[in-house]
């Protein structure tokens, strides 16, 4: 989904239909050159596993400048160096980092360098695809705080993609839950935890090991269906303890069940 928003799906995958609208413009209808200009400038990606996202034989400074140059930002050398320093500082890195190669940095520093590149053109939307999945919890917290701060400074929106419900609970405002390629619930994050609309959401939350009480987590029985071989009706019905006859035949659609609360379940 993160890649589809940026129109970066690789063949043989392709986008079959629908729209991705940013400020009223459908990104899917843009030409290749136009979408190149939109990426980074208006919508940027913080990739999963920053260690593989940076060029190992380029200094951090040059990788930031590369992006600026590609988007035809003309600056003097001095202005450029100042901009690099400013960007690194805004993600909590010292200006010496500019001269370093990726292998000289720790995982958390590399991930911050990626954030610096992502915000270099002040985008409106930042797509962060599991930005901290390779980091330790202590470093994860620092990186997420950095992301929260630049998000506020830029006034940008962040789409955080991930599987860590704890991270979602602590970071996002609205949360969408996906199952078998579809959104099955979208609600303000507090409501997801207190009054969720979908049985899968509730089971997912119940499957999380808690640090407060012992013995309070349960797995979800059954297996995730294959995307090319989905069960008829609701894709979750074989694993759902609340399934009724209707679930076996009719696929529920995502609809607004309460103000700002969307669910795809026949029971709500």
């Amino acid at each position, binding site marked *: 989904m993160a890649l589809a928003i940026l129109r970066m799906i690789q063949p043989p995958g392709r986008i079959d239909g629908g729209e991705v609208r940013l400020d009223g413009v459908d990104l899917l209808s843009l030409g290749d050159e136009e979408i190149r200009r939109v990426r980074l400038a208006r919508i940027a990606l913080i990739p999963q596993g920053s260690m593989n996202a940076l060029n190992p034989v380029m200094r951090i400074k040059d990788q930031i400048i590369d992006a600026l140059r590609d988007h035809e930002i003309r600056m003097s050398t001095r202005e450029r160096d100042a901009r690099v320093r400013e960007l690194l500082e805004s993600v*909590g890195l010292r200006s010496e980092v500019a001269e370093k190669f990726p292998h000289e940095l*720790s995982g*958390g520093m590399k991930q911050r360098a990626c954030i610096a590149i992502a915000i270099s053109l002040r985008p409106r939307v930042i797509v962060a695809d599991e930005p901290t999945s390779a980091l*330790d*919890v*202590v*470093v*994860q*917290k*620092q990186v*997420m*705080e950095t992301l*929260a701060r630049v998000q506020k400074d830029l006034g940008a929106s962040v789409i955080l993609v991930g*599987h*860590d*419900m*704890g*991270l*979602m*609970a*602590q*970071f996002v405002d609205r949360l969408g839950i996906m199952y078998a390629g579809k959104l099955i619930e979208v609600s303000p*994050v*507090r409501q997801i*935890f*207190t009054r969720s609309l979908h049985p899968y959401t509730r*089971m*997912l*939350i119940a*499957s*999380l*090991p*808690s*640090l407060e009480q*012992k*013995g309070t*987590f*349960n*797995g*979800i029985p059954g*297996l*995730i269906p294959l995307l090319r071989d989905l069960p008829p009706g609701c894709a979750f019905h074989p694993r759902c303890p609340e399934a009724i006859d209707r679930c076996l035949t009719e696929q529920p659609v995502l609809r607004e069940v309460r103000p700002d609360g969307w669910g795809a379940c026949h029971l709500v």
Partner: protein
Amino acid sequence: MTTLLEARHATRLFRGGYFDRTSTLALDDFSLAIDGDRPSIIAVVGESGSGKTTLARLLLGLTSPTQGQILYKGQELQTMSRADWHAFRRDVQVIFQDPYGVYNPFYRIDHVLTTPIAKFGLATSKAEARASIDNVLRAVGLRPEETLGRFAHQLSGGQRQRIMVARALLLRPRVILADEPVSMVDASLRATILASLRTMNRDLGISIVYITHDLATAYQISNTIVVLYRGTVVEIGDVELVVKRPQHPYTQLLLSSIPLASPERTWMIEPSAPVATMEIIDHGCKFAGRCPSVAASCREAAPSLFQTDRDRAVACYLYRGAPTVTGDHR
């Protein structure tokens, strides 16, 4: 108390290459004893680079300590007889992190179950072998008829990891070492695998060493927890005490960094801890560079373990008033 598996002041140093004079202290003076009479679940928690995997490899005899000893039933792994080594290889089993890498893609998964039976002579007939395989597969919640005869790529990560648990069970071991067994498994299946570890401990009397970076699962399944920081034990003891009332500043930092999956926000409120410095500390406390309560004495000599409760010890000068733990803790 009969001690099964024991690490006694185990230290493991990795030297750099021929031209590289630096060396890495992966594990520093680590001691731990697994009691044979009271089967327990011990969790070893730490960030990446804390020495978790080095510890697992040492306890399995896959690598030898630079200093100190690893003992099984009082015999040192490196010098024990062939017969003892054979028995050790059966009694101490391992479940590795990656349920993808452990399978040979050209063999059917039956291979990982029939090989140990042949190697240790666990069955006298094909029928007997098949019966014990069916047994252990059912014990981990798999249906033998749907599992056997398949290739690894036809099974999900959760199924593969459960086969690894079944393989360990097949040998009726005394100790199972589980190195991040659920970190590569889908969240909904984690609970099932952890529950089978707990059942093995409770019903079959197998001691489990659960190595992980995830404090929440460690809290859920273990009785005793060991917190490692850069190869050193910083806090060890009863899991309720360590998780609910952490004493070492590192344990406190680790616990406060965990994003809790609850509707209440606990994050982003207090300012973040100082950024990790890359400062190499040869002597003194390894956490001194990041510690909010650091004092001059912390940089002079490394603190020893102080026994702050009956069931807990902490390696921090903040608790220097408590008695020092002498000899081997627990």
